[in-house]
């Protein structure tokens, strides 16, 4: 049954001038970072995280929801116009969007992408609104042992699906667990590898870690480049967006009609995105390619896939924004972030003194519904705002890294400082930035590390609690059906990854030899 009171309270929180203004601000910010290749919603959300401390919990989360939805859509624009996906999720969009643009129908492709994003986001948002209450109720039955196994499972599956190898993902996750343990023990208060820094006694500060691993790392990687995009591609992108407003409107109108005429593709792609989004760490790139592949398998239209088929763009974009809604399910009900941006949103919850996890739905349901409704509204606003802002969005890619890097690094340092008025936190952000830089240059993903920083303290606290409840008997961890199912899933994930890694290595070595 729908918790209508909580939804109504969420609507009340969303429909205030402040919340709506921040939602639009977040959407525009998301459009900007989504267009920039290499940037993601997580980068922008990490940057605004410390400054959101002055906002109420729901407004801070609504701001990030706007960034999330905006970035999810905007990545499609450079993918269609220049074959350069702004975000990983837009990679599948380029497969048919770019050929359509080369046929002189770029605005039609963007219109299809806008409408598909809008419909995917709205459909997923409505389903999530309906199911998150009952799912939150189920999660309330989880005890310490279940929460410990869920945290382990979340980390394992994220390590498995992100990056180029399970082993590297697991190393990043375990490194994150250890860094999270560099604090006073939650049971005895004894300091563990804090190196004499009093600032580390109360858990590793989360905000500097997020700023460092997402924003500083990205800037250090970007510093070596002279241009965000090759000049010829940037010019092509800008020219493609300068065909006049009336032309845009007519083409976009056709794009909307084209999308609405394919309800099955929209529904199927949104469903795939929603379901895969619920699995922590799967991410939009994987989900979009699955959705694209499914649409290709069932395609019977005149235009073949890869040559500008509208179904290809719909499959990728509807799925992309549906994933955004899906990631909110594990994030809000279990406290396990479904994506990097959702991890930053969890950071915002911490920052506002809200402990993420199953109890969030019991203690802060109106705020959760306000965020979900904000995502839904953001999906609708993509349509008009996307039309208005498409020309300025295309100009953003011409910004030079020489200007971008110092500006963002300065903001990172003051952002890390602002939360606790501590320069130690600025230095910590820089340290995490360097760590992230080393990890990424050696092919290690940073997302499992970030999630381990969140889940580490949760895993440890529940591990110790479960151990005490079971009188130090390890069999207690296998003493419930839910725990057994989670252990089974965990073992299956590890086994599948080990087999897959061995097969990949054998194939690679055979090719090399």
């Amino acid at each position, binding site marked *: 049954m729908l918790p209508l009171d909580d939804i109504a309270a969420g609507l009340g929180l969303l429909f205030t001038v402040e919340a709506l203004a921040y939602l639009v601000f977040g959407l525009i910010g998301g459009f900007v970072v989504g267009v920039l290749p*290499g940037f993601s919603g997580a980068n922008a959300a990490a940057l605004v995280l410390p*400054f959101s401390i*002055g906002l109420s919990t729901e407004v801070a989360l609504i701001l990030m929801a706007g960034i999330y939805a905006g970035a999810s859509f905007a990545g499609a624009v450079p993918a269609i116009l220049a074959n350069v996906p702004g975000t990983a999720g837009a990679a599948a969009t380029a497969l048919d969007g770019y050929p359509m643009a080369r046929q002189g129908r770029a605005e039609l492709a963007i219109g299809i992408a806008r409408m598909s994003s809008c419909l995917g986001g709205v459909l997923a948002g409505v389903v999530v609104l309906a199911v998150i209450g009952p799912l939150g109720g189920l999660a309330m039955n989880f005890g310490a042992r279940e929460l410990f196994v869920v945290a382990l499972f979340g980390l394992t599956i994220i390590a498995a699906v992100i*990056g*180029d190898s399970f*082993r*590297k993902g*697991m*190393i990043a996750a*375990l*490194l994150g*667990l*250890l860094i999270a*343990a*560099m604090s006073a*023990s939650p*049971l*005895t208060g*004894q300091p*563990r*590898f804090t190196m004499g820094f009093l600032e580390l006694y109360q858990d590793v500060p989360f905000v500097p870690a997020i700023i460092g691993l997402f924003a500083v790392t*990205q*800037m*250090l*990687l970007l*510093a*070596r480049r002279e241009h965000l995009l090759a000049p010829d591609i940037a010019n092509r992108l800008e020219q493609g967006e300068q065909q006049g407003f009336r032309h845009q409107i007519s083409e976009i109108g056709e794009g909307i009609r084209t999308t609405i005429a394919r309800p099955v593709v929209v529904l199927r792609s949104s469903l795939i995105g929603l379901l895969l989004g619920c699995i922590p760490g799967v991410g939009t790139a994987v989900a979009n390619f699955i959705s694209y592949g499914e649409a290709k398998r069932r395609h019977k239209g005149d235009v073949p896939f890869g040559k500008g088929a509208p179904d290809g763009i719909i499959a990728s974009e509807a799925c992309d924004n549906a994933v955004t809604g899906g990631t909110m399910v594990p994030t809000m009900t279990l406290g396990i972030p479904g994506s990097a941006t959702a991890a930053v949103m969890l950071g915002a919850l911490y920052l506002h003194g809200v402990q993420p996890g199953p109890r969030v739905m019991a203690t802060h349901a109106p705020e959760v519904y306000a965020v979900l409704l904000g995502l839904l509204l953001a999906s609708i606003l993509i349509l008009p705002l996307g039309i208005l802002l498409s020309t300025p969005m295309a100009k953003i890619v011409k910004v030079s*890294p*020489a*200007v971008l*890097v*110092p*500006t963002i*690094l*300065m903001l990172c*340092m*003051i952002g890390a*400082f*602002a939360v606790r008025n501590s*320069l130690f936190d*600025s*230095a910590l952000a*820089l340290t995490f930035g*360097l760590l992230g*830089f*080393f*990890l*990424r*240059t*050696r*092919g*290690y993903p940073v997302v499992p590390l970030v999630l381990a920083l969140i889940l580490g303290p949760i895993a*440890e606290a529940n*591990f*110790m609690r479960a151990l005490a409840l079971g009188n130090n008997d390890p069999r207690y961890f296998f003493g419930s059906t839910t725990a057994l199912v989670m252990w089974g899933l965990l073992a299956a994930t590890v086994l599948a990854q080990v087999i897959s890694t061995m097969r990949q*290595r054998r194939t*690679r*070595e055979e090719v*090399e*030899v």
Partner: protein
Amino acid sequence: MIVEHSSQATGVSDLLSRLWISILFLVFAAAFWISISDLSGEAANYPRAAIILLVLFVLYGMTADVLSWRRGVAEVLEDDEAQAGEHEPGIRGLWAVWQRTVAAFVLTVAFVWAIPRAGYYESSAVYLLALFFLLGVHRPVILLPLTLGLTVASYLLFELVFNVVVPSGPLLG
């Protein structure tokens, strides 16, 4: 997209380029283990379990890396953004690729060091000016207004909008 790592170094330096980060992980794990060696079981068991798992995964990776190196299998990395591109082998080649990154990092360290000594806004003006210049903004008509504009904008934003209390210097704050 999977891209073949393009380091052309061979022999021991190639092996070291594959293993250095694993060695750092092991050093971190050893330092952590030693630092908690005198703690009670309740405080130390959880990090010890994580250290053991980390060491197992790292050793497994190192073994795989050494075997691949001995068979002459090229290293494959997957992060377009992190790819260094073609460069000359050795330190000089790496420096050519990453010198701007080193400049950005070193100047940011200096910036954080200078904030409590010279004040936030004064330090950020000098930092922005230096880093813009080092990364390639050389024309004074762009460099100076850009630095000044960003410093003033950050002053207005942090002092008036966000009320962030930053370390004050001789001029502002």
